[in-house]
């Protein structure tokens, strides 16, 4: 399914960066893609199912969940952090700022066992 992605702050992402940057709480709350419930249903996904999210710049395995901060259909949200950063390109359009919001992504069911911890994500390039 093709979606428009925005990355952003959530309170538990913020708490995760304060308490547990390399650990489980941060991963549980930031290695997620939040979507409209109807989009989850159309993909045949249960809440917290694994998905592969692919942008023009990279891909990452995340857990998909219905957004508490309600999203319209077609829009997805990933909290800031190392998982979201894998999908963001480094072109800043001569502003210094990469496009962290409004990029096209593809979301597919994923057969992996779990998301990768931040310390094992590695990096392209």
């Amino acid at each position, binding site marked *: 399914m093709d979606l428009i992605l925005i990355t952003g702050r959530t309170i538990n992402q*913020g708490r995760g960066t304060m308490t547990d940057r390399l650990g489980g709480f941060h991963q549980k709350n930031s290695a997620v893609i939040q979507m409209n419930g109807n989009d989850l249903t159309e993909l045949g996904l249960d809440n917290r199912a694994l998905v592969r999210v692919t942008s023009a710049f990279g891909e990452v395995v995340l857990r998909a969940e219905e957004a508490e901060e309600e999203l319209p259909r077609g829009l997805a949200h990933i909290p800031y952090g190392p998982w979201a950063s894998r999908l963001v390109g480094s072109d800043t359009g001569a502003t210094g700022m990469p496009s962290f919001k409004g990029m096209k992504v593809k979301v597919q069911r994923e057969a992996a066992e779990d998301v990768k911890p931040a310390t094992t994500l590695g990096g392209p390039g």
Partner: protein
Amino acid sequence: MAGMIQNVTCPFCGCLCDDIRVVLEEGKVKEIYNGCALSQSRFAEAKRTENRNLQPLVRKGDAKLPVGYDEALNRAVEILASADHSLLYGWATTSCEAQRAGVELAELLGASIDDTSSVCHGPSTIGIQDVGYVTATLGAVKNRADVVIYWGCNPFHAHPRHISRYTVFPRGYFRKGRKDRKLVVVDPRRTSSSRIADLYVQPEVGHDYEILNALRAMLRGAKIAGPKVGGVPTGTLQQVAELMKRAEFGALYFGLGLSMSRGKHRNVEAALELVRDLNAHAKWVIGAMRGHYNVAGFNEVCAWETGFPFSVDFTRGYPRYNPGETSAVDLISNGEIDAILTVASDPVANLPAEVAGKIRRMPAIAVDPFKTLTTEAADVVIPSAVAGIEGPGTAYRMDGVPIELRGLCEPPPGLLGDDEIVLGMLQRLKGMGSR
């Protein structure tokens, strides 16, 4: 030391709430009152040790070995001084005193210096430079505002006490509280903040520029031909325009929904111009929802030291400022940087993956109280005290008001503050003779 300490400043977000009450027990933070969930986490983090960097480390061969501060600082300066073009990055969660030392270090090295605002409200600063802005302190808004707009931000999650302490709920000199104020939230997501709004406006992502300019046109009496602008019904925009015009004192706060979306600084410019135009009808002010607690401080310090607020390049021996060229992401992705010093930030986690990969492969020094992906990747790790909890300093609130950070308790044994660490590098560099 035991007892309650009053009026402590929270070193988490740009609200810099300075009414936190802290209970200390045996020199450690035991409980805090008045703090939001983020503040609780911030103070709790500092008292744990398993997530802390407690010993300087220097890479030797394949291993990072514990060393003393002296050896770590010597190695750091050696790396920076031998680089062709180093970058000094971060600075958002430390004191102005450390930031000031950082700017001097960059100048002496002939390096570039940038803070996290270049991937945050950097476009907002560019917008302000382009068109200027009408602003006010949070205190003025608390006392006077009867209409408050949050555009492209979700304060309940990112600045949890902004609404309750400064804008909508508090009793002010001229306002009794919530019932005296109207709240408008503009966000593509129906967020927690939007659920308490009197009027919720749901734009399509990336259409802020045209919506802001449609509002400007409406204020001038123009009729909008289409049924919608950027996904928002024209009638809803008319409602917003009327509410704005009828305000006695309006305040518009904007977040990264403007500065990170398509249009970036142009979106911010449109918001600044809208507020400027509104002052023909009513008193209106605008402010950016600055994220990290002293990211605004870096812009102040850098501006008074160099004339420019961020993304400053000293490679020619004088300060140059050209975001898009001299900003961290562009410098690193263009392959211009061959060594990096990070202070109080985690670019390996938060910058685009291509940039993070390049940081991982270059000689890197990380100064941070906590273990992060950046300290994991660094060749030299220099632990520091948590500014604002384990040491005093100065920070700038999001509205440009400087506020004192209190040192509440001692850091883990032997740890230095960020300012002492950066000054230690400066002393060593001066000892070597500047380049």
